[in-house]
Each structure stands twice: as structure tokens, then as C-alpha cells.
């Protein structure tokens, strides 16, 4: 899966949690919690959504690495390649 595709999945999962952001321009490097007021629960729900879509485990200590959409795409790309195969992926 390309970084672009991962970025799109991250955005879709985000809009499930925070549909109020639909139509907003979300710069790739914008800190989601700071710029868009996402709170801890939103963040946890977003991470859960990423897990559901990609089947990738995101341990809590890694949460700071998902502070923006771009950072999340980079992180997910690394995690997915580390897991070796796409066999684990559930839908998209």
C-alpha cells in the first residue's frame, strides 16, 4: 500500500470520529489535537479505526508518532512493511 493510500485511510478513519472536519482543509503536517481540538477519546477512537481498517497493532507508546495525518501515514507505512506481508490486512 502506498503512503498516499495510507494517508487517505487515515483521513477516512479521522472523519468517522470527527465528521465536523469534513470540508476543512487539513494540512498534512497539522497537529490534529492542537489545531482541530481532538481530545484523548477522539484520538483513541481514531487509532482503533486505523487498527480495524489495516489490522495493524499500534502500541500506546507509539501514539505520539501519529500527531498529524502525514506522520500517521509514515508510521503506518513502516509498521506495515515491518509486519512483512499484506496477508494480515483486513479490508481497506
Amino acid at each position, binding site marked *: 500500500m502506498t503512503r498516499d493510500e495510507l494517508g487517505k485511510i487515515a483521513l477516512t478513519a479521522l472523519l468517522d470520529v*470527527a*465528521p*465536523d472536519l*469534513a470540508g476543512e482543509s487539513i494540512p498534512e503536517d497539522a497537529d490534529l*489535537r*492542537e*489545531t482541530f*481540538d*481532538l*481530545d*484523548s*477519546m*477522539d484520538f*483513541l*477512537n481514531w487509532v482503533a479505526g486505523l487498527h480495524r481498517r489495516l489490522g495493524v497493532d499500534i*502500541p*500506546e*507508546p507509539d*501514539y*505520539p508518532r501519529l500527531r498529524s495525518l502525514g506522520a500517521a501515514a509514515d508510521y503506518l507505512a513502516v509498521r506495515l512493511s515491518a509486519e512483512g506481508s499484506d496477508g494480515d490486512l483486513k479490508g481497506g
Partner: protein
Amino acid sequence: MLPQIIHKAESAGWPAPNLADYAAVCSDFSWERARSALRGLPYGGLNIAFEAVERHLEDGLADKVAIRWLARESDGPGGGTRDFTYRELAALSSRFANLLGHLGVSPRERVFTLLGRVPALYITALGTLKAGRVFSPLFSAFGPGPVKARMEIGDARVLVSTRNHYLRKVAPWRAELPRLRHVLLVDCPADALPEGTLSFDDALAASADTGGLAPTQAGDMALLHFTSGTTGRPKGAVHVHEAVLVHHLTGRYALDLHQDDVYWCTADPGWVTGTSYGIIAPLCVGATMIVDEAELDPARWLGILQDQRVTVWYTAPTAIRMLMKIASRDDPGMVADYDLSRLRFLASVGEPLNPEGVIWGRDVLGLPFHDNWWQTETGGIMIANYRCMDIKPGSMGKPLPGVEAAIVQRDPHTGTVSVIDTPDTPGELALKPGWPSMFRGYLNEPGRYAECFAGGWYLSGDLARRDADGYFHFVGRADDVIKSAGHLIGPFEVESTLMEHAAVAEAAAIGIPEPTAGEIVKALVALKPGFVQSEDLRRDLLAHARKRLGPAVAPRSIDFRANLPKTRSGKIMRRLLRARELGLPEGDISTLESDER
């Protein structure tokens, strides 16, 4: 099987407890004598900011670090750390106090903040109190709806905020609040200031850094904290300067704060804990307090506890439960990588801490959590597990010396209140009025204030029981208020916002259990004729609610119903909806007139 009681071990090198013999201190306690711990103003009167800052200048603490502020990003100046000594805090708060004078803000007028945990928040709080004006902090995750409602009720004269918050949450409706005269924006260059705003930093720099202390009296209004009830708009609980007596006393007794402590309260000053215990109490004691700008992040938090050598930590069940996910009692995981040996005392507030959380503290952090209980209305901790007492996990502890608490029952017909003496019998938790930090009113709502008292008691709205040993245990809320991540959310505020959507005929907001936040807000809505439920409409409603209310208050989920159950008088039966949602017994439904479909 979890232990029913924890006997604590004391470590060599710890200072003696401030409260060593609970029973003896209780039996001999008087508020009048407790007041001698305060300095008082040089020419009579009492002022919170003076007790928190100025008094220490004469006690040899002028150059001690009062606040160590940790920026969200560590690549800023000073490695993201900025220290404020007591002397600097005195000067900065004088600047802000003088600024309020220049701006023509009168005594008792309200100064609001809509800020994250940035230095300007603490300067504004202390400067406002010093100047004898009234400080009212708003949670920065509120959306424009809650912000507007609170500033309207509080008759805001000044707002200190950031450009981003102001443009998103205030500017669109500012013209409707003509009495909001001054908006000061933090970290905003002069050429980027929106119309009708001033630069906080420039205005502060142009004001004198001495004086500004107003001759406030013990009963003068100092703080305005908003809270929510089941019905109606948010309520502004009024606190007076005398409350500082309880802040100081509970800082010493319930949190066992000593002058040499490095103390960290993780609560945001937008909620009452973050003001009483995240600003006032630790400064009154003369301790060094940590402020972290960033949101909860387990690794960062463990790093702060270690690197800042925190000794006393006051946090909340939601945060503790998040930490419990990365470390279990059997496997401390990454917690084992941190040196937390400086920690001496852990406390928790916001909602009852599960017994597992108390024990988790003991087994993973090396110390059990001390749960305590209080409310916006009480101004300070009222019931606590003290250092000198055994902990009963799951219990909120025993009343503060000087505070009389009881379990009572209200007769719904006569309104009379009777005290329940039989141990372990649930009833409403009540306090005998007279403690100095008791709220003195809901601003401009004497009727709602009066409803909080009956038969000589303040009725808390919380259901509890007292066991045979005198420990209090939380049972539930007496009303429909939702408690999410330790914050009270009024269902009415949520429902009113949903009703503003063109598709909604009626709405009910209820709290449903969630493992981390305790409860989350769920809304059930019935649509107007001509609207059809769909996934798109559900998202549209969620978006509408989040835009207006902000994520801290908006529902996390919404379901559709054809009709909501109502009483004969047309009141939606939230309790019944909640019971059905959770598969609980429906209870008394004799008043049910129109049922759910």
C-alpha cells in the same frame, strides 16, 4: 481477589505527614484557628494571589521556582522548559493586574480565559485575583456554543485567548456580547491581530511590574467556575477569596504537600481541579509545581515524573486507566524503564477510582492512589484518603477536619431531609454548610442556588454510603448529569444543540459506560416528519454537535428512535432510556405516558 484495605509503608527520608492523627485533629478543629496559617493582607483583608505568591517573597522563597512550564515541543527556547520564580510570578501578575486597571475593568468584573496550559493562563489567573477582579477559566476544547453560553452568563468583560481559538469560537458571535470589551491574544504578532483585539504580550510589557494588589475582603467574589445540571443552562458557581483557606489546608492535609515538594496536578485549569489544585494550593504551600502543555501521553508522563523528580502527583481515573493499558500489575512493561523513586504521594479525583486502579498504583508505581471527592460547588477537597490512614480501595475516604458530611434522604413530598445513620445504606451525600470554600451562589440564579440546600444541609446530588468505619463510598448520581473523563456534562446543553438541527424533533443525551472515560455521551434522537434516518444524517448530526459543542461535550455516538419515552408532563425519561440501553431493570415507570418506538 483485591485487598479490602491497604496498610501503607512509610519510607525513611519522607517529611512527617501534615496530618498525622486524623481523629485528634478532627476533634479539636476550628476554622478560626486554621486561618492563622494564612498571612492576610498587610492592612487587613484577604487575597488569594497574595497568599499564593506575594507572601513568599518575605519568607525567603522569592527566587525559588514556583512554576516549571513544559512546552508541548521540546525544540523551543530553553529546551521547551521555562521556569517562573515566585518573584517573577509576583511581577507578571502585577503587570496583568495593572493592565486591568488601565483597561478600565472594574472590581468584581469577570476576566475569562480560553487557553491551553500556557504561561499566560497562570499570569492571567493570578493577576486577575490580585486586582480583585474575578477569574473564570474555560476549557479550551469547548466549542463556540459552550463558550458563548458561559461568557454570556458570566457577563465577561475581558477574554484572554489565542488567535486560533478566538477566530474559531468567539469572533463569529462577538457582536452579540457588546459588554465583552477587551480581547487579548497570546503569541499573536501585531500585524496578525484580528480587528477588535489587543496583543496580550505587548499590553503586559507596557504595564508596571509592581503593585496592583487590591484590598479584597474574605467574602469578595474571586472565581467563577461553570458546572452543569440536568436541566437548564450551565451554572456559574461563585467562589470568594476566603476559599484559599481550604485550598491551603487541603493542599497540606489531603495531598500532604510540603514546601520542598515537586508537585504535578494534571488537571486543566478549565475545570475546577486545575484551578484549586493546579494553581492555588501548591503555590500557597510554597512548593514547585509542574505544568505540562501537552495532552496525555503515557511515555511523556512517565518521563516527566522521572525527569522532574515529581514527589506528589494528583491526577484522574481516566488518565490512570490509560496508563493501566501499557503496564499491568504482573508486567510493568515500559514503566520499569523509568526511575519513579522520588514519588512520595499519589492522589486521584474526578470520579471514583476503581479499586483496581488504587492497587495498580501500589504494584506498578510503588504507591497506592489516594482517592478523594469534591465538586465545583465545594471549591476544595471535602472527603479524602489521607496519608496517615489506611486506604480502602474504592472508597473516597473520610471528611476533611472541619467538614461535617452525612448520608441523607430527602422526602420527595414534604422536602424534609433526614440523616441516615445505618452503615452502608445508600442515600444522598450532604455537607453541613460553613466551610470557607463553599460556593456563595450561582451567578444571577438565586433560585437554583436555594435548591441545593434543605434542612440545614448542602445536598451534593451524589449518592453514596458510609461504612461502619466512617469511610464514604460513591454509589451514583442522583440526577441525569453525565460524567465523562471526570467532567460533568449537562444533558440539556447537548440536547438543546441537537434540537437546533433542522432534522431533529426531540433528543435525549445519556451517559453510557466506557472503560477509559468512565462514561461517554450518547444521544438518541427522533426526527421531524419528512426526514429519514441514514448514515449520512447521523454523521451530519455528529458534525453539527461537535462543531457547536466541541469534543469534550458533544456525543460520541447517536442513534435514531421514532419516539422518545416521556412522562405525562412531557419530560423525556433519560433514566429509562439509559436502563434500556444497558439492559438494566427499568425501575419505576409509573409516570411513563408515551413510550419509545
